[in-house]
């Protein structure tokens, strides 16, 4: 597995994706304990999971376009939340 630094985002951009990442994790773990019989929370949770996932994907799409990040078949991008660096990881 190879890892190459391909870019950097701003602190504000980092904060945005970090918040989405945290929320997605929180929703996923909440989904383990909220069942469908809790109608109010369940509906909200499902909706939130969808919208958070979309925002998450949009961030990567927008940033990739904005910064013209390098890509590779079978690879993926990673962010280091400490340094705001973006890496391309290839198998």
């Amino acid at each position, binding site marked *: 597995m190879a890892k190459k630094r391909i870019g950097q985002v701003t602190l504000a951009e980092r904060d945005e*994706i*970090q*918040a989405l*990442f*945290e*929320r997605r*994790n*929180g*929703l*996923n*773990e*909440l989904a*383990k*304990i*909220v069942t469908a019989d809790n109608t109010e*929370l369940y509906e*909200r*949770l499902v909706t939130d999971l969808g919208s958070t996932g979309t925002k*998450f*994907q949009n961030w*990567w*799409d927008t940033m*990739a376009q904005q910064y013209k990040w390098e*890509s*590779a*078949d079978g*690879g*993926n*991008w*990673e*962010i*280091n*939340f*400490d340094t705001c660096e973006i890496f391309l*990881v290839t198998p």
Partner: protein
Amino acid sequence: MKNNQIKPNKIRENASPWQGGIAKSITFIVTKDCQLACKYCYLVGKNEKERMKWPVAKAAIDYILSHEEMFPEASVTWDFIGGEPFLEIDLIDQICDYLKTEMFRLNHHWFNSYRFSFSTNGINYHTDKVQAFIKKNITHLSIGITIDGTRAKHDLNRIWKGDAQPERGSYDDVVRNIPLWLEQFPNAGTKVTISSADIPYICESVLHLYSLGIHEVNINCVFEDVWQEGDDKRFEDQLMQLADAIIDGGYYANYACSFFSEYIGKPLDPVNENQNWCGAGKMLSIDAAGNFYPCTRFAAYSLREKRPIIIGNVRDGIDKNKLRPFLTLDRMTQSPDKCKTCEVASGCAWCQGENYDAAATPTIYQRATAICLMHKARVRANNYYWNKLYRKLELEGSREDFEKNKPQVKPIDC
């Protein structure tokens, strides 16, 4: 192209403490019981009776989450402490489920930024209940297992409770769970506490922890006045041995030990570097009776000499007046003259609870200095470490690379 692969460990266990400085730390003292009776434990009032009940925990959560304006911090660490917290895994699981549900239901800003944190003796780590809890909350957990080093060092202090003779050490009961722990939390660190009798074992213990696969060793001397004449020299000798072992053995590239830091041993500016060291007052602890404390160290079971400092309770809320001394406390006001003019002051830590407990009057404004000679010994060894290491790296032409990638430790001192 997959583009959502953010390594969880980049967040959960990154080099700097999670949301360091901006996260509110809220501690549930779920039990005052523990399987062990560690000789250096500052908890003088441990017992099997004071176990938190669900209604108390729920009332605390309801109070905290319904007073969002009083807790503006962007993030929160929900901390669980004992005694041994995992003795109360059922309660903890209930608390965490309720927290997650309520933070979401209330649309509380902490839902986007929270952690559940544990300091455990590791004995129950492998049990089904604890493992089920870990799997359920894996992306929000920070778990530290305390292991003091070699079997000899660990069993010197960390012994099982009871009157059995000879004393029974807990090393084997803990170390069997280290592989599982490191598999689940590869970048986890451990916390080691040094008292007078531990000094001869420091070097071998840190190296032993490295050999177990623990890359980050947070280690500190106890703040209590336990030190014997000559301990500082013995301490310095151990740290010098450790410095040699880390450098000569090449551990510095991938392992960290909090004893060695480039930021310690410098004079501090009386105006610009006047901050308090300790976070007491910015934290909140809740005990089984539903009382609030500025930090666990101010609860009765932590104090030898003084009355507890209770800053409110789950029924009446927080008495903000009781927090004012903590939030306006600065380094210079609480320090004696020898600390104010100390030429190696930086990195010299203190515990507000121990300051209070050891003070001549019931005040948090009298800094205890039992650690003074030990800090100075640490500074001397630390200077040796960095001088030796940087010379080696310069001769190898690898200093720049090291500076960029050097391992860090979380600045934990209590």
